[in-house]
C-alpha cells in the first residue's frame, strides 16, 4: 500500500481547485445576500445550510478528506460530533429551555 506522500500530483487538477474556490466565493456571496434580504424565520436555517456547505467543501476537497483514508475522517468526525453536541447542549439549556420553564 503506497504511503500518503507518494500520491504525486494529487487527485485534483489546479483547475478543479480554482473551481472550488469559485464555489466558495459564490456561497459566501449568497450568505451575505440572505443576510441583507431579511427573510425572517427562513434566514437562520438557510444561513446554516450555506455555511455547512462551505465547511464541508473545504474539508472534503481542500483538506482532501473525501479522497483520503477513512481513519482521518473518523478522527475528525469524532471531534466534530462532540463539538456539535457541546454547542447544541448548551444552546438548548440556555437559549431554548428557559422558554419552556415549568
Amino acid at each position, binding site marked *: *500500500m*503506497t*504511503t*500518503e*506522500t507518494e500520491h*504525486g*500530483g*494529487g487527485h485534483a487538477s*489546479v483547475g478543479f*481547485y*480554482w473551481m*472550488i*474556490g469559485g464555489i*466558495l*466565493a459564490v456561497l*459566501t456571496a449568497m*450568505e*451575505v445576500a*440572505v*443576510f*441583507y434580504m431579511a427573510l425572517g424565520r427562513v*434566514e*437562520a436555517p438557510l*444561513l*446554516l445550510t*450555506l*455555511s455547512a456547505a*462551505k*465547511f464541508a467543501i*473545504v*474539508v472534503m476537497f*481542500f*483538506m482532501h478528506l473525501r479522497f483520503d*483514508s477513512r*481513519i*482521518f475522517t473518523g*478522527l*475528525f468526525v*469524532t*471531534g*466534530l460530533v*462532540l*463539538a*456539535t453536541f*457541546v*454547542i447544541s*447542549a*448548551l*444552546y438548548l439549556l*440556555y*437559549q431554548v429551555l428557559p422558554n419552556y420553564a415549568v
Partner: protein
Amino acid sequence: MAEVMVHDEHHYTATGLDSWKVGFWAFIGSECLFFGTLIATYLTYKGSSVQGPYPHEVLDIPLTTISTFVLLMSSLSMVLALDGVQRGSKKLALVWLGGVIALGLVFLGFQAYEFTHFVHEGLTIPRNLFGSSFFVLTGFHGAHVTVGVIWMATLFILALRDRLPPAKALNVEIAGLYWHFVDIVWIVIFVLIYLIQ
C-alpha cells in the same frame, strides 16, 4: 512456518498512512472541541449583555464579508502551494505560499482594524458579555491565524533555500490541514456571530 520479517521496518505502519498525518488529524479533532466550546459560550451569552454596545450596533458585515472572502481565498492559495511543492515547482510553491502569507496578513489586518474600531466604540472585554465572549473567541482564532502565518513563512523560507522538494510535501500538506482548519472555524464564526444576529 519460517520466521517472519517485516520489510523496511523503519517505515512500517499498520495502515500505510503517515503517522504525522494521523496525529495531526487527531489534534484537529481536539481543536474542534476547543473552538466549539468557545463558540458555545458565545451562543450561551447571546442576548444576555446588560449594557451595550450590542452586536448589531458594531458588527460590520460588508467589512467582515471581505475578510471572510480573503481567508477563503487563502485556503485556495494553500492547496495550490501544496500542488506546486508536490510537482517540484519552486516558483509555484513560492508564489502560492506567498499568497497564503499575504492573504493571512490581510485577514489579520482586518481583525486588528475591527478590534481597534470596537474599542473606540466602547466595546471592550470588561464592558459586557458580548465584549468578553466576542474578543476571546475571535482573539483565539486570530492567534491561531498568526501561528499559521509564522508556519507558512517558515515553509516559504525553506522553499526559497531549495529545501522543500516533493519528498517533503507532507510538511506542506500538514501545514495546509492546519490552515484550512483555521479557515473552517472562521466559516462557523462568520455565520453564527456575524450573520445570524
